[in-house]
């Protein structure tokens, strides 16, 4: 419960940024309206989730320690709260993607058979990126230089989004999608395994971050 309370504190700290979330949703819808595959808004929402999930690190200042560190809790509560905050954005991205998928179906459009496993891989990949970013930020320290923080927050998200766009263009050109459609069953299982593996890595990383943070001074 205390971890959830810390997650709520993170939401309050970055609420001005969270207010922009619906705007990104609209952009994702507009992209989809351009005739791209449904995976494009999915990957865009994952890009947004990656960026937003690390926002509280940018809102940390040393002086806050007198309040946040003194709240009756353990280091595990604080770190888990931050990880839950990150996970909640992945959850929001997944819900948005689910809504897209429903709209897609309602409009009578065909969903490519490979879209579900590809979405699962995308989800696992997004979680992995966020996990690595969190690890870096906790290893360096929550009060890292703003320039470095900006790079760590934005570069992997942008890189993964543009890589996804490139792969999709490339895959269509090469006719790989047809091949993927034929091997759909195996891909779906692999996608599920990837998400489960990402979740395990997420938990292991959180434990590492707790260990690192427990030894650290906050000033």
């Amino acid at each position: 419960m205390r971890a959830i309370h810390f997650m709520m504190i993170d939401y309050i700290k970055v609420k001005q940024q969270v207010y922009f979330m619906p705007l990104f949703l609209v952009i994702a819808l507009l992209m989809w309206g351009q005739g791209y595959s449904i995976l494009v808004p999915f990957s865009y929402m994952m890009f947004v989730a990656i960026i937003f999930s690390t926002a509280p690190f940018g809102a940390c200042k040393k002086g806050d320690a007198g309040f946040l560190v003194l709240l009756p809790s353990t280091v595990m509560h604080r770190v888990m709260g931050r990880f839950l905050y990150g996970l909640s954005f992945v959850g929001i991205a997944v819900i948005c993607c689910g809504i897209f998928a429903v709209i897609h179906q309602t409009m009578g459009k065909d969903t490519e058979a490979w879209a579900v496993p590809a979405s699962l891989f995308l989800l696992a990949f997004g979680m992995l990126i966020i996990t690595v970013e969190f690890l870096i930020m906790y290893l360096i320290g929550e009060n890292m230089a703003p320039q470095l923080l900006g790079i760590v927050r934005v570069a992997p998200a942008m890189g993964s989004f543009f890589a996804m766009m490139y792969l999709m263009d490339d895959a269509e050109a090469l006719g790989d999608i047809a091949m993927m459609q034929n091997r759909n069953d195996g891909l779906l299982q692999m996608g599920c395994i990837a998400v489960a593996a990402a979740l395990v890595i997420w938990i292991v990383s959180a434990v590492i971050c707790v260990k690192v943070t427990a030894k650290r001074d906050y000033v």
Partner: protein
Amino acid sequence: MELLEVKNLSKHYKAFDLKDINFTLPKGYIMGYVGPNGSGKTTTLNMITDICKCTQGEIRIGGITCAEDAIAYKESIGYIGDEFYFPDNFRVKNIRRVLQNFYPAFSADKFNQFLRRWNLPEKKPIKDFSRGMKVMLMFASVLSRDTRLLVLDEATNGLDPVVRTEILELLQEYVMDGERSVIFSTHILSDLEQIADYIYFIHQGRTVLYDAKDELIESYLLVKGDRSEVSGELEKALIGAIDNAYGFEALLPSDKAGLLGSQMHYEKPNIDQIVVHYIKDRR
């Protein structure tokens, strides 16, 4: 009954060492923790609040260490620092909500009473509060729950005399029930003169003095006179002699009063004077 026990506390930094800090603070008392800038006051208080970790030693509040029960340990502390510690974009309602979530003993009614008493606006963003309002908000947040130890790190710095006086009265009220204590670091030693029961004085990370305030004051004399009247033995006994236009001024342990000549003037020193002469002596 001791509320705060600090044993062999040490902290090692590259350029600074805090070493072997030992003291106890009984329930119902106020301790002034004093020393010049960079002497290790904030480091000690940060270790008490677990904001930073000690290299060696042990801290117990009400008999428990932070490692044994972090939640109970932190629930018993109310901390007010020199720096305003609520996140910038928080509003009063956010602080109230967080305190409600984390402290079972938090009283929203009491918190609201403090807000009204000190005219703290609910709707104004707290980053726009004046220094005095920010300090009072921090006080409201710690006094509206069941803390047992107040840790104040230069909390009264930069406050006007009216607000400072009000805070000193609050601290006296706080310890009145004999169950709660205050450890208070400040450069405004006249504040300690008014409210402290114990004085702990550190310099360059080492303990210089630690005693009950009244005994400390009784232990020394503030000596003034002409240098020519200072004998060799007296010279050795003087602490932190400062030359001025009228001769010199120094501290002398009370038990050495017999060394004073008939032309020497002496009086009871205040805490400020004891600290100044000790710092002078160590430089």
